[in-house]
């Protein structure tokens, strides 16, 4: 392999890239846009869920309970008239749950019995439904504790719960490092794929075949070029991310510094593989886009933890570089465990990258041009 030829190929790619102004703008604008949207808008935890309460008891006790419900962060209470059907607000979409406090509730409680409340929860949104259930349950639990005199009921256990690394429970600390992974998996791959497929679409690949450039040199040159572009994207995206959300290395940054270029390289090699395997730009983009969307958003623990998925899919995630990078990224900016915790990541990513390179090389090696 001649390094000089690789370098020439790399320079040619960069020149070609620079000339298409729109692509350059989008190569940096798109990742930034994605970062901003995800970082600013996407949150999983919900507050102020509208619920309807139908108080048919109308005693000081029931009113006290309703005011406790209003006092929770998660719920926003509106009163439902006694004549209305409990399912009405759910059907209309104006409330996510209806609580019916039946008449005689206060009397039951005062006699030392349990008083059932009717609760209907709209479970089309499964996560919302769980949040609402927990909020109602915990409000009821705390409310019940106040009804009992202190000396009559001593809890056997009290749990002192601490949340480490992120006591403020900032979701951005989880989402933004994850966005780094999604963005760096998608855009370098897209650019590389388009560059690769353009060669075969336009027929310029024949010149490469006819030259002394070997398939490996061609791939190495293109990878180097788009790795450089990708590192530029890294600087822009992570730079902005650290500014807006004050994300900085918590402890030893070396794992992240090693993992990042490896990950970008994996992304570029994947793009080159797809580009070498498809014949039109739209097909290449759809291929990179849909495979990326599925593998990198789902099989990486980006939105929901990996452990939630069926085991077969968890196994599948072991061949996705982004899964390792997300772990390293989140750890580097929040927990700080570093090499002892996630040192296996760069090796896994390097192995996957080698496989991509080998597959792309096998496709290009034959140097046959399908007209």
């Amino acid at each position, binding site marked *: 392999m001649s390094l000089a030829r690789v370098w020439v190929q790399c320079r040619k790619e960069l020149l070609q890239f620079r000339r298409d102004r*729109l*692509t350059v703008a989008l190569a940096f*604008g*798109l990742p930034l*846009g994605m970062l901003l*949207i995800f970082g600013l808008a996407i949150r*999983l*935890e*919900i*507050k102020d869920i509208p619920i309807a309460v139908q108080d048919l008891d109308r005693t000081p006790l029931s009113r006290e*309970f309703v005011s406790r419900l209003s006092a929770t962060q998660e719920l926003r209470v509106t009163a439902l008239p006694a004549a209305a059907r409990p399912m009405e607000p759910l059907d*209309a979409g104006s409330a996510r749950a209806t609580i019916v406090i039946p008449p005689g509730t206060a009397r039951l*409680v005062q*006699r030392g*019995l*349990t008083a059932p*409340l009717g*609760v209907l*929860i709209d*479970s089309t949104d*499964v996560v919302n*439904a*769980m949040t609402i259930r*927990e909020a*109602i*349950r*915990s409000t*009821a*639990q705390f*409310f019940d504790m106040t009804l*009992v005199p202190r000396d009559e009921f*001593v809890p*056997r*256990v*009290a749990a*002192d*719960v601490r*949340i*480490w*690394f*992120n006591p403020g*429970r*900032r979701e951005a600390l*989880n989402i933004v490092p994850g966005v780094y992974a999604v963005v760096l998996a998608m855009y370098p791959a897209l650019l590389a794929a388009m560059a690769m497929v353009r060669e075969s679409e336009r027929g310029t690949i024949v010149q490469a075949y006819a030259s002394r450039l070997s398939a490996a040199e061609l791939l190495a040159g293109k990878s180097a070029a788009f790795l450089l572009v990708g590192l530029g994207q890294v600087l822009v995206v992570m730079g902005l991310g650290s500014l807006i959300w004050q994300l900085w290395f918590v402890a030893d940054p070396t794992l992240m510094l090693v993992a990042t270029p490896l990950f970008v390289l994996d992304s570029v090699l994947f793009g080159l593989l797809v580009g070498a395997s*498809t014949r039109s730009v*739209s097909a290449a*983009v*759809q291929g990179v886009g*849909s495979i990326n969307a*599925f593998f990198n958003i789902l*099989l990486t623990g980006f*939105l*929901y933890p990996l*452990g*939630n*998925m*069926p085991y077969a899919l968890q196994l599948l995630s072991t061949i996705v570089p982004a899964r390792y990078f997300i772990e390293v990224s*989140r*750890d580097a900016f929040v*927990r700080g465990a570093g090499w002892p915790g996630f040192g296996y990541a760069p090796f896994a990513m390097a192995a996957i990258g080698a496989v991509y390179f080998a597959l792309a090389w096998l496709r290009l090696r034959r140097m046959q041009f399908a007209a």
Partner: protein
Amino acid sequence: MLSRFGALLRKEFAELARNRQLLFLLLIPPLVQTVLFGVALKPIVKELSLAVADESKTLASRDLIAAFAANGVFVPRYVDSGPAVGRAVRAGHTDAGMVIPPEFTRDVQRGRTAEVQIVLDGVNAYVAGQGAGYTAGIVDAYDRAAAGATLPGVDPQITFAYNPGLISSWFFVPGIIGGLIVLTGIIAASAEAVREKDEGTLEQLLMTPASSWEILIAKIVPLFVMFLGSLCLGLTVAKLVFGLPLLGNIPLFLTISSVYILSGLGVGILIATYANTRQQVILISIFVALPLMLLSGAFAPIESMPPFFQYLTLLNPLRHYITIMRAMLLKGVGWQVVWPDAMAIVAFAVIAIAVSGARYRSQLS
């Protein structure tokens, strides 16, 4: 005029049918993705790993650990000592940790409240929040069971409406189907509309006696038919694989879906009037379609977004379509409930097609 239009239509259909690779990519991956996303997206947190240091080792402490392990919420793993728990959490090897001090048994026997320490890995704030909630619920239930006699108080009897099994795919699949339609619709329509500019055959198009409206509609119709078919196919597959309910007024739903598809195609054509090559058009399409998909309530709830973004989503036809989809298919409600969202989609479609049509015409003449 009709035969002219018919000829154009035949040509567009034929071209679409000939592009096997594109057809495949527009039909199969969305279907596969719908199924895979539906299978893989499981937001309900469970099986959190819990590193336990039981320094008390009695029946009472084991009871407590068993309470945490019940229902698969936490998965306990025993470690030697309290500091070992801290090390495991700090190394990222466990989601949570619990330390039961040696005084636990003594306190329980003396009727005092025994303290245990719970540590949660806060890297994922959502998971940590759920873990904290579960902990509070488990400890409270444990305390009540230990107290023996029933305590007075209110007892919420919870019923889940519409989706009693809490099947997460029922929530995500409508969003995914709608999102993929808008994503692939915009990309396909924009690639289609820019084709002549990209290939350099614009002159041929200018020379045809067909009016620019006829040309445009002829381009839209095959894509429209394909996406409507894709939608029906997707819903059928979702019903077979996930048991997705298909309640409500189906003809009304398909009508609204048709308008929605048209709005997506309209946006695609609009994008094509702003670019010259297929590559540019695809990048812009992704730039437009991704925010539409993300800010739509498909994956993350709109209610948890900052107010600015919540208002912004009102301009997103996908947001309205997902609301309608969930309301009509899962709840079975009708026009009285969904008409505001439906009218929003209609307005969007009309504007998109009118503006893109006007621009396309002026570029063609």
